[in-house]
């Protein structure tokens, strides 16, 4: 049995930016087999569909999961009202996560907004060999900067309004970086338009790039075929399940223009 349903007790909960919550769960069965870039599906009282939330961290020995989510609608709003000691009904670990090279390789990690959390474990894997570029609307929306700093990464912060870090887009920062440096792999998660920009730069510089896609999801395990992403390969164009075949794809697999 690859999937587990368990009641994860909330050990800690912090609002790290307005409407963005950092939750630590005791979920030993899922933590035991979780991998970087996977997600869990969370039941929200009164809703038919679970909410897919990526793992921002996990500790197999301590049986702990960390999730960071933004209140986007009524389901996540319900989740945000849960308190320390409450249980979350979760299914996981789900999906195909990030592929990691040897940790001595040079990685560039590009995160946008609430797409940043699943990239933290990637940064923690490459540590000083990782360059992390994250972008947020403004200083108060920026999250996880301390975590990326603690991981020992080279950290570049961008904001849309210049209220913190570089005034500009992550793709501009990435372009500047790649004009002077090289790396073995690029990882990205965030708004689709940003990931498309990252994918284009990776292709120009002939660097492998992994992207974590998002789509409205049904079952979360590959059965219902609702959360498809346009992909392409030698056999032509396909609509591929984000929940099972993804969420992480090679940037060249994604049919960005579809």
């Amino acid at each position, binding site marked *: 049995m690859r999937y587990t349903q368990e009641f994860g007790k909330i050990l800690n909960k912090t609002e790290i930016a307005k409407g963005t919550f950092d939750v630590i769960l005791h979920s030993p069965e899922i933590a035991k087999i979780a991998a970087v870039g996977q997600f869990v599906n969370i039941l929200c009282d009164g809703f038919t569909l679970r909410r897919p939330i990526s793992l921002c961290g996990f500790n197999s020995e301590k049986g702990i999961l960390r999730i960071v989510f933004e209140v986007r609608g009524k389901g996540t709003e319900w989740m945000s009202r849960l308190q320390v000691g409450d249980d979350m009904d979760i299914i996981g670990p789900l999906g195909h996560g990030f592929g990691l090279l040897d940790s001595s390789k040079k990685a560039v990690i590009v995160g946008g907004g609430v797409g940043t959390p699943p990239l933290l474990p990637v940064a923690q894997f490459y540590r000083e060999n990782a360059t992390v570029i994250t972008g947020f609307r403004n200083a108060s929306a920026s999250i996880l900067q301390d975590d990326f700093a603690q991981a020992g990464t080279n950290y570049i912060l961008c904001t849309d309004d210049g209220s913190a870090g570089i005034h500009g887009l992550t793709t501009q920062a990435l372009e500047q970086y790649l004009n002077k440096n090289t790396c073995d792999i690029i990882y990205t998660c965030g708004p689709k338009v940003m990931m498309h920009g990252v994918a284009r730069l990776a292709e120009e510089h002939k660097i492998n790039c992994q992207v974590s896609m998002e789509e409205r999801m049904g079952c979360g395990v590959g*059965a*219902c075929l609702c959360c498809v992403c346009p992909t392409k390969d030698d056999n032509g164009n396909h609509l591929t399940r984000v929940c099972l075949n993804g969420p992480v794809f090679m940037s060249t697999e994604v049919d960005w223009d579809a």
Partner: protein
Amino acid sequence: MPDMSVKICGVSFKNPVIAASGTYGYGMDYNEFYPISRLGGISCKGTTLVERAGNPAPRIAETPCGILNSVGLQNPGVGRFLTSYLPRLKKQNIVVIANIAGNSVEDYCKMAERLKESQVDIIELNISCPNVKQGGVNFGILPGSVAEVTSQVKKHSDKPLMVKLTPNVTSIGDIAKAAEGAGADALSLINTLTGMRIDIKTRRPILRNNTGGLSGSAIFPVALRMVREVYKCVKIPVVGMGGISSWEDAAEMMIAGASAVQVGTANFRDPFACIKIIEGLESFADSLGLKSIAELTGTLNEW
């Protein structure tokens, strides 16, 4: 403990709970939660003669007590179904219902021919998919076309034929009688109700296909009423579905006249929904002192 097995058009199911087509793929995804051999049966993802890519995303939208979907029959085609999916599924010791869809009567007949001598136990004729441009529900809304496709497929098939009905009709009883008259061995109902959601910021439908099929608890009372209506019109077995999410819902459906039930959208909320329904029905039948769960079917005492 009561005998949980039921027999529908000559096929024995170990219990009356069947995973509903379109929500359960070809079964193996849920085999990662529990052995799917515990189910009575599985109705496979709607399959067509040739592979279909389906509709672009978004394909799903949440609604009060339910969802809309517009997958559009994405499937690998009957060839790969037979060579790759069916053998794996049959190894699980489970009744397999092949849900078939097509653009023309000829397509449905060719599908039935391809399934001859296969390990498929029952064919479910999908003439009720609301999410494809050609075929699908167009065959299911008029008694004449229902009878035509049903009788033609019967001529090309050696399997029991279960016709899956759409609720998007004026009189479901007339449709049911047309299918029975044309040789259907069983009926299953209801497929989804056509619906829509709009994003008020962009003023666009949430679904890329604009409309989709409504399923989930929201449609349960409608499904129950239609199963009852059809049960009273026909002599062939009726398999009830539409928003069943608990054993109590399943019991209501059987009391209304269903010989078995299909469970779909409830699996998304609780992947163990089918198992809980089987266990709940068993305890319920036991508490009533029934020898067999089949004794529940059609026992409604109407006012």
